[in-house]
């Protein structure tokens, strides 16, 4: 019995007559059409993501809530957080653009996949940092709120009078944690969808290439 692949090789070379053939006019038309490659989609999604998170942080900074407490922010925490978040935005836009420019279809299959993964990871790292910064800011704002908000102070005093101060703090802490947890869950869900749509096949092939080298 002949080796299967050798048999196929002989036939492969002969088999060109049944292949479709496009005319020059067809090819001219094709080069002017728009690409639908996953890189294009990943870039679109990433830019939207960056815009979303940037506008979120700008919105948070300019909200009445933020302005009211900024005056009471004795340690300039808000100012420092703002400077850091803008610095982070600029750094990540630069890194994203730099990595995106590195994507080159003339690279090897493995390199190309790595380039795309790196570009995608830049955005994911940005989102992770935003989540950490937001969480810290949320807790600090919450601490400030406890000191200045009249309703809060009244509630706290009532709890203290009843001897429930610890329980009060505990419930508040749990509420904030649940709130932040839900936010992270939502973001995580969003990433699962993105992963499913664009990156599953990419990672599968990357694993396959790594297994060959293992």
């Amino acid at each position, binding site marked *: 019995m002949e080796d299967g*692949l050798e048999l196929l090789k002989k036939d492969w070379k002969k088999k060109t007559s049944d292949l479709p053939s496009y005319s020059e006019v067809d090819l001219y038309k094709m080069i002017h*059409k728009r690409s639908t490659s996953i890189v294009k989609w990943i870039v679109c999604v990433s830019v939207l993501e960056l815009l979303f998170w940037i506008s979120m942080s700008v919105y948070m900074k300019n909200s009445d809530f933020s302005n009211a407490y900024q005056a009471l922010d004795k340690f300039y925490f808000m100012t420092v957080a703002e400077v850091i978040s803008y610095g982070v935005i600029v750094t990540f836009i630069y890194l994203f653009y730099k990595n995106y420019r590195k994507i080159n279809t003339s*690279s090897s299959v493995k390199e190309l996949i790595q380039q795309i993964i790196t570009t995608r990871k830049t955005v994911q790292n940005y989102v992770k940092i935003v989540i950490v910064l937001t969480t810290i800011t949320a807790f600090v704002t919450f601490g400030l709120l406890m000191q200045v908000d009249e309703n809060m102070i009244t509630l706290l005093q009532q709890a203290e009078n009843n001897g429930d101060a610890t329980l009060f703090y505990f419930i508040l802490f749990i509420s904030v944690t649940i709130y932040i947890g839900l936010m992270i869950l939502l973001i995580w869900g969003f990433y699962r969808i993105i992963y499913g749509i664009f990156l599953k096949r990419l990672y599968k092939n990357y694993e396959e290439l790594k297994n060959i080298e293992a």
Partner: protein
Amino acid sequence: MSENLEQIFVSQLMEHQNILHKICRLYTNNEVEHEDLFQEITIQLWKAFPNFRGEAKFSTWAYRVALNTAITLFRKKSKSVTTHSIEDKKFFLKSEDYDATEEEQLKLMYQAVQQLNDIDKALVFLYLEDKDYAEISETLGISEVNARVKMNRIKSKLKKILNP
């Protein structure tokens, strides 16, 4: 200048479009997908063409860009419908058994290759195109030794299909 570049590109592509069609055949399951992939490969080649310095042959460079597009950049619109499932193939083997003619063996081989994963398909494709292991390893980004080992594994896997 740009029109001139277009002309050069299209004439090169005319000459080598068979390569692209073969890759499309390997990575798609129907004509619509075939056309879509061909279209995307053409766009990617055209986009990368200004950076193609002629250090390699046009065909060698086209293999890379085309495989990269098929494996990584192309997103199928629909869930792929394979024409023959593995079960069909087993049934076919049992009924025909050892008397399979060359044509039937070929049919089986094509079906088997179609079922391979994206990376294995690329290896088989380059092998069928008579590329040496140096080029195969460079195109995929793996070492030459590993490319050889992997290819041998695929060969014996395919052999088993004909000789269960």
